[in-house]
Every structure is written in C-alpha cells, then in structure tokens.
C-alpha cells in the first residue's frame, strides 16, 4: 500500500527525521490560508500515487498566498496517469544547496533490507544507477544484527565530505531504518534529501510503501489507505477479498490463481484481444465472491465479453459451477460469458453449466479464443 507524501512525512517525523512543516489543502482557499501561515513562499504538491508529478504539472512554487491559491486551483482535479488529484500538500519553500537520494527497500535476492544512496538526488534513481553506477552505493543490512551505527556513518560518508553533514545524515539513515521497520514498510525513500545553506540536512520529499501483509496488525497504518486515490473497482475488489487490477482491454477475466490469471490475460493477447483486468478469485467457490467478481468486471463499460478460467485442483469444479450459476441468478450481466472449468469433478460441472445454458469448455485456449471472438464481434 502506497502512502501519500504527507503521510510518509508524518512517519518520518515520528522517527525523528527533520522534515519541513506542511498541511493538506482540498480547496484553493485552504491552500491560500496555509500559504499565508507559512509566509507566502510555499510549494504546492499534488498528493497522488504516481511518479512524475513534477513533469505532469503537479508541483508548483508559489511566491505569495494568491499564487498558492492559483496553483492549487490548477492542480486540484488534475489527472496524473489516470488518477485525479484530490489533495495538495502546502509546505514552505526550502533553500537548497545539494540534493541527494536515500532509500531502503526489501531486496529479493539478499532477502534483507537494502539501502541505496546517491549524491545525485532529486532525479530518478534508476536512471542514475544505469547511467552513473559509481554514484550509487548499495548496502545490504544483515537482519540478524540490524543497521549498525558505523554502517549508517559509512553510507553518510559516501554522500558528503563535511563532518557535520555526515553526522546529521548518519542519524537520519538510522531513523529512516527505524521508520521502515516500525511500519512494516517494503520501501521508504527520501528524494531529495537536501542540505541547506545553513548546513542542515532535511527530507523534502517522502515516499513509503507498506507491505499489504502487515496491515492486519497495524490498524493505524491501514487507516491511512486513501481509497479516493485508486479506481473504485479496486476498492470494491479488496473489500470482497479479491485480487484485482484494472486494465484497459475489453475481455473481462475471472480466474482462480494468480499465475493462471496472468497466463489467461497473456492468452487473450495471444488471440488478438486485450484483457480488461487481472482477477484472482482464489480457491473459493463461494457464490458471494463470484458474484462480486462478476459485478466488478461487468461494471467496466469497456468489457465486451467475460471469461471464466477455473482449474479445480483442491476445489471441486461442480462447486464452482454452482457458485457461478447462483451468482448469475442474482445479478444481470450484459456481456456474453464463456466458461472453462477443468480438474476435479469436471464432467459434473460441465453438465451443470450446459443445463443452465452456458457454453462450457474444457480447454483454456478454446475459451480464450471464444471470448476474444465475442469481444470483437
């Protein structure tokens, strides 16, 4: 779960990291009032789960409160990579001497937290890593010993020469690690970490992703989820316990298992169609879940056909078939539905489906090909 900049900054503040003050505005008037409070020179920043805010016009410097109001007016409601800006962060402008990058995330290959630091901050770190690898230092934390003070110092020492800046930064690195572990984050990033002409080190942007699997035991962090910042269908899917990702195609997919769901999407493409979504209903044959899935897929106006691809391993296919039939009896679906069910009790399932008037297929290729044909028809 991604946090907004202002939420991540609050986590950083709790850990002691120096972060400039800031307040959230939902209207231009609020932005103006906040700018007034901060003396006029402020930055107005779109709060949206997407990179490239700056390029999209989502970050603007204001010289006075009226200017802040004007910028907020432009940014609120702006669409950035498909997401509408509902909130802006208004924060005093900082004088900047240097910009660095400081991040920590869970590294898959070392199975441990890894720090990434670079004196080339304020820009895309992946790009820096590719074009100027010498300017990036990586450090894997041994999870058995945690981040040790000298390791934080070594990393800080890679960024600056001034002992005073190194000292402040080593402390911030320790605090960032603390924020990372205390929130169950999978990623925490300060970009840029700035130095000011007065010799202070500060975090003026903040990004954090929290591991979804942590949220059950961290209600305070779970409550930070901003459902207004994601497609409505995804909110509904999560509430129904479904894995769902909205896409732009016309073939709705309802599959059990994440791997099979991805392979089904790929096969839609293989047969010349475009998948409308990723959806994993899990191992369940629960009609409520099937009904929610169907409703979510059908509510997408782009969807022209819907396919089920179910491989009954542990789950019995006849149970799933009954679940589908019952779900369809509850809700009305405009788009044609084609179903493939195979595995345990397959024959029984196909009989149930055919009796209910549905096309029923035994092969994944057949059902996908038919779904694409129907969508293109």
């Amino acid at each position, binding site marked *: 779960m991604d946090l907004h900049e202002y939420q991540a900054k609050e986590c950083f503040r709790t850990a002691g990291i120096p972060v400039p003050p800031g307040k959230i505005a939902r209207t231009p008037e609020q932005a103006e009032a906040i700018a007034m409070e901060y003396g006029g020179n402020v930055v107005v920043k779109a709060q949206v789960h997407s990179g490239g805010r700056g390029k999209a016009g989502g970050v603007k410097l204001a010289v006075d409160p009226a200017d802040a109001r004007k910028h907020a007016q432009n940014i609120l409601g702006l669409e950035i990579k498909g997401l509408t800006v509902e909130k802006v962060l208004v924060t005093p402008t900082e004088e900047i001497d240097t910009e660095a990058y400081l991040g920590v995330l869970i590294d898959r290959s070392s199975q441990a937290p890894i720090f990434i630091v670079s004196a080339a901050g304020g820009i895309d770190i992946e790009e820096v890593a590719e074009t100027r690898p010498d300017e990036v230092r990586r450090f894997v934390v041994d999870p058995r010993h945690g981040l040790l003070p000298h390791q934080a110092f070594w990393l800080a020492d890679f960024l600056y020469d001034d002992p005073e800046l190194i000292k402040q930064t080593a402390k911030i690195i320790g605090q960032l690690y603390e924020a990372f572990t205390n929130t*169950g984050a999978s990623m925490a990033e300060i970009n840029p970490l700035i130095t000011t002409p007065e010799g202070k080190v500060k975090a003026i942007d903040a990004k954090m992703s929290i591991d979804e699997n942590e949220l059950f035991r961290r209600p305070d962090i779970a409550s930070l989820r901003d459902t207004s910042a994601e497609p409505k269908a995804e909110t509904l899917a999560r509430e129904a316990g479904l894995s769902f990702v909205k896409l732009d195609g016309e073939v709705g997919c309802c599959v059990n298992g994440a*791997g*099979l769901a991805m392979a089904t999407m790929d096969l839609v493409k293989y047969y010349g169609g475009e998948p409308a979504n990723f959806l994993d209903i899990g191992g369940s044959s629960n009609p409520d879940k099937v009904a929610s899935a169907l409703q979510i897929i059908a509510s997408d106006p782009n969807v022209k056909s819907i396919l089920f691809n179910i491989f009954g*391993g542990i789950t019995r296919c006849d149970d799933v078939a009954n679940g589908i039939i019952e779900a369809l009896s509850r809700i009305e679906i405009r788009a044609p539905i084609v179903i493939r069910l*195979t595995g345990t009790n397959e024959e029984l399932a196909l009989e149930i489906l055919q009796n209910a008037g549905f096309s029923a297929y035994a092969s994944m*290729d057949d059902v996908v090909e038919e779904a694409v044909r129907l969508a293109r028809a």
Partner: protein
Amino acid sequence: MAIFSSSSTRLVVQGITGRDGSFHTRETMAYGTPVVAGVTPGKGGEIFIGPGDLTTPIYNSMDQAVSETDANTSLIFVPPAFAAGAIMEAAESGVDLVVAITEGVPVQDMVRAHAFARDRGVRVLGPNCPGLISPGKAKIGILPGHIVTEGPIGLVSRSGTLTYESVHQLTAMGLGQTTCVGIGGDPLIGTNFIDCLSAFESDQETEAIVMIGEIGGTDEQEAAEYISGDMSKPVVGFIAGQTAPPGRRMGHAGAIISGSSGTAAEKIKAFEDNGVGVANRPADIVGLVQEVLS
C-alpha cells in the same frame, strides 16, 4: 527417485487442527505420505483422525513432535501472523525441510525467518507455495494427487494453478513427473529455481524439466544463466505476465514489475539468450517437452 522428498519422508504438520491444515493433512495421508505428527500448541496429547483408520498424535511443540516421532519434514498451515514463527520453530526442531503453505506472511517477518533458517542450514520451501509432490512417493502440500503421474519430467513453478494446468497437460500426453515443486509467489522465498534445477540435474530419473516463471524479480534470469552454464538436462520455460502493467501487484506479492525490472519480456529474453526453449502459451509446453526429449 525424486527431489526434496522420498519414501523416507516423515511428515509433521504445524497447524494440523486448523481448517486448511486438517483438510490437507487428510489428503496427504490418503495419498500415502506418512504424517507422523501434528503440532497445535495447547492440543498436545490429542489424536488427529485421518482418512480410513489412520490417526496421528498431536504435540504442543515441534521440539516434542520431532524428538518423539523422528519427523524429518514439516508442513505449515498456521495463520500469517504466526507463520514466520512456525518456520523458525521448525528450523530449530531438527527437521531437514520446511514447507510453508501459508499465504500473506509479512515480508519483514520472512526476512527474519529466512535468516534464522539459513543459519541452521534448513531448507525452506515457500511461504505462499503449494508445496511439492513426487508421484507415487510423497505429497507434501496442497498439489492434488490425482493430476500427477510417475514419469521423467521435473516441474518447478512459482504458481499453483498454473502448475495444475501444466501438469494436467503433461499427464494427459503421457508425460509423468518425478517431482512437481511449487516454490511460491512471495518476493522472499526459501528454495528457488536454481535450487530445484540443481536438484533435478542430480536426480537420476529426471530427464527434462519444465520451469514456470512469472513477472517480478530476477530469479528466472539467474536460473537461465545457471541452465546454460551448469546443466546438461533440457529445460522448457514459460513466463506468465506478459500483459501485466508495471508497478501493480498481480495477486502474488512477488509478481510485480518494479520500474523497468522484472518484466516477462526480460525473462523470456534471458531464456532465449541462454538457449532455453520458451513456450508462448501453456498449451505449447508439452510440445516443447516432447521435442527436447526426442
């Protein structure tokens, strides 16, 4: 022969009295794998009733279970909040292999659990994996016994249902399996592709291997290099997620393209660059296998 399991597998199930744990323990017992013990803290002394007239004793701790029954493999069904703890308990109890089925284990918990298991030299499979099955020999996990059959193919996959799909097709074409291993869909997993490939390479009965990957991480790329550098047996690959958008988690916590890294295209290219045949769709896997076997 088979990998990570054999007819001497002696299984202990952690979380044996839970809904999933009890169901799959019965399936496992029915398949003929000896479940010598179950563990549920507080239920020690009770008896688990399996299919037919099979039963198995329940212990309070892995410590007791292993010392009383000489179990050598643990299968874990405990809830996510306690799963990492259960893996560490298993790793300290003396078993050689820990198979963690539980989905949704916090990743920072797994950082600790993997470090602990590594320190003790204990193999972990998973978490969030379907486990493994060696047809006719041992079933450790939730892969259904009736879709597999004995034969010369080793199969390793990050996905459960995609494993069913592929095994189903292999079996239908008469291509049986030595062992099918689901390594799991989480970002931090114990046993990885290379571990399995290397075990299959050493397994005398395995003649060819099917490897099913997906988006996220670089395990498939590293496996491709390993195959071209260190393996003599043929491998057929498949990668799911060609149409997945970047930055979105596709069900599995590990199935996510980060920035421009971990894409299906990248992985398919790694296979091709290392001379590994890649199936365009699941249905092509069988054909490629037949090709490499002939």
